[in-house]
């Protein structure tokens, strides 16, 4: 039918026969897309008197916003903490491969490394939109080196640092540049952390607490200075104690500044956290839960040995340990398996399982006006999934960038 569009001549695509995640519910509605953004069909109809150019039958799929992974160390043989010559092609490879896991935006994560690594690698990470080439890069997540020795986990001890001498200047000198940095994980009990947290927050960088032995008041103080995230809750922090809940206590703390929300990452691969602990956290503070993969280079590859920055890790099934130890180091989980495992373990609704991987990370990074939802005028980054939450197709800016092979690989 002839369309008479007064605003733009760009083609309009109408996705029909689907259930879309909107306003926290799966609604039987069509999804309209124009110029890479979600379009309001009512406005199109009445104001522009326009109609769709192409109609696609989604065969009753679920359409959800694309997943956002804010903690991923690498995959498919690529390690973001290794300053190799072909670093750029490595990041491109990962960003392209994770499309099949439903990830449309991510934060490449660097574990504790010597300053030389940061100085070489960070300038090669650029914030960029996703597309057929791969998922969008939102910015780097720097996990360390300003973390606690006692809770270093898989991070190399000889690279740990403090900033008690020069506070923020020390941090800047270590990293070299903060231009494309989105998140920094640090241990708030370190001296002068408040100044650092304030300075980072002022620059729009999300501060996350992790690999720390902080008690609850130290954690609350950090939040008051601007921290908004907890890195892989329960892992690499003091366990919950009923007289000092530690960082875990932030989930139900009453000292959080008004209007702010503390988010917390969880690796729901069935290994990093016992499902019962996952449920306790989810029930205590459902709106703050953010699924992360914490995937390492070995993700997507056969079991065996791989690197994680300065360390060697051994993969055995779903378990990833520092070679020769029982220290967990990252995971080989993919985002979509995390979503499915989360839904199964908590018994939550499909809507919730999808939101903890899309809406909540977008809210954490303050980008929910354009990512993480299917609201009108948002970026058209979305997924088609079947009822068991297996990704059938991935779209970025309204273009199909990955589709499940029909032969069922």
């Amino acid at each position: 039918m002839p369309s008479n569009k007064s605003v733009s001549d760009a083609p309009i695509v109408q996705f029909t026969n689907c259930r879309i995640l909107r306003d926290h519910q799966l609604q039987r509605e069509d999804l309209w897309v124009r110029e890479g953004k979600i379009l309001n069909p009512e406005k199109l109809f009445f104001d522009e008197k326009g109609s769709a150019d192409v109609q696609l039958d989604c065969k009753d799929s679920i359409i959800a916003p694309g997943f956002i992974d804010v903690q991923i160390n690498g995959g498919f043989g690529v390690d973001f903490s290794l300053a190799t010559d072909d670093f750029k092609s490595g990041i491109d490879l990962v960003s392209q491969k994770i499309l099949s896991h439903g990830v449309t935006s991510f934060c490449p994560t660097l574990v504790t490394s010597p300053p030389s690594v940061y100085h070489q690698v960070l300038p090669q990470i650029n914030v960029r939109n996703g597309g057929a080439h791969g998922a969008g890069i939102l910015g780097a997540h720097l996990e360390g080196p300003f973390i606690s020795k006692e809770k270093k986990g898989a991070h190399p001890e000889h690279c740990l640092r403090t900033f008690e001498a020069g506070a923020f200047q020390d941090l800047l000198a270590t990293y070299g540049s903060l231009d494309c940095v989105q998140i920094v994980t640090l241990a708030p009990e370190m001296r002068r952390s408040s100044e650092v947290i304030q300075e980072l927050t002022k620059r729009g960088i999300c501060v996350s607490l992790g690999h720390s032995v902080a008690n609850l008041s130290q954690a609350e103080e950090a939040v008051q200075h601007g921290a908004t995230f907890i890195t892989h809750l329960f892992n690499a922090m003091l366990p919950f104690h009923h007289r000092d809940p530690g960082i875990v206590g932030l989930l139900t703390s009453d000292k959080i500044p008004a209007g702010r929300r503390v988010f917390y990452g969880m690796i729901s691969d069935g290994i990093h956290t016992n499902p019962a602990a996952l449920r306790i956290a989810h029930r205590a503070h459902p709106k703050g839960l953010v699924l992360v993969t914490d995937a390492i280079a070995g993700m997507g590859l056969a079991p065996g040995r791989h690197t994680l920055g300065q360390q060697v890790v051994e993969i055995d099934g779903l378990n990833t340990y520092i070679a020769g130890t029982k220290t967990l180091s990252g995971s080989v989980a993919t985002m979509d398996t995390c979503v499915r495992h989360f839904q199964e373990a908590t018994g939550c609704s499909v809507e919730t399982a999808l939101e903890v991987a899309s809406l909540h990370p977008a809210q954490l990074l303050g980008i929910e006006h354009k990512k993480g939802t299917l609201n009108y005028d948002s970026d058209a980054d979305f997924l088609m999934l079947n009822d068991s939450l297996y990704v059938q197709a991935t779209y970025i800016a309204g273009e199909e960038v990955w589709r499940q092979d029909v032969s069922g690989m």
Partner: protein
Amino acid sequence: MKLIILENYSQASEWAAKYIRNRIVQFGPGPGRFFTLGLPTGLPKDHPESYHSFMWNNFFKHIDISPENVHILDGNAPDLQAECDAFEEKIKAAGGIELFVGGIGPDGHIAFNEPGSSLVSRTRVKTLAMDTILANARFFDGDLSKVPTMALTVGVGTVMDAREVMILITGAHKAFALYKAIEDGVNHMWTVSAFQQHPNTVFVCDEDATLELKVKTVKYFKGLMLVHNKLVEPLYSMKEMGAERSQPKKPYSD
């Protein structure tokens, strides 16, 4: 008039839908214009309770109508009376209304022609009666101050000009209005009674809406259902339209 009595809301809706479908097919696809009746003033188009939103969500988004063929009175037009006059002109230009479909209020109003509206009125701005405002409060979270007090509406005269009128009346709360509409006299306090003087009116209702009618009336019209059902069976389709053209337009008339 034809009074079609079905058992309940769903059946009444289905009968009406089939009838409208047959009428559309008989009318032929051609220019096929579509007008909507009335719009409360002051609500922005994208307000969830505006007629634009109502029509979009309940009708337009489910069909393939061309947006140019949709004419809804704009309650936010700078000159409301000019908007109403233009609406009347558009109806004339389209060749007049072939079939008008509407409901009635508990006070017997058709469109927003409240009690006391002239039976020869045209499209204009109307102040709403308290009854109507109360009835609409449910769309505004029960907050009376949020309910619009004025509306643009087609007039009784405008609807009388249509070649056929169909009124849908369901529910016990409409029963008294239906009684006043068809068993009492023509009266501007119950504006829908004006259709007693229209040559082609169909009232579709459910059992509950007949609660205030005389048993004699109800029995009479129920007895006619065999004949009335011929209007919805067979169900015509656009593909068969060519073959059906040779058949008379209506199986019988009043």
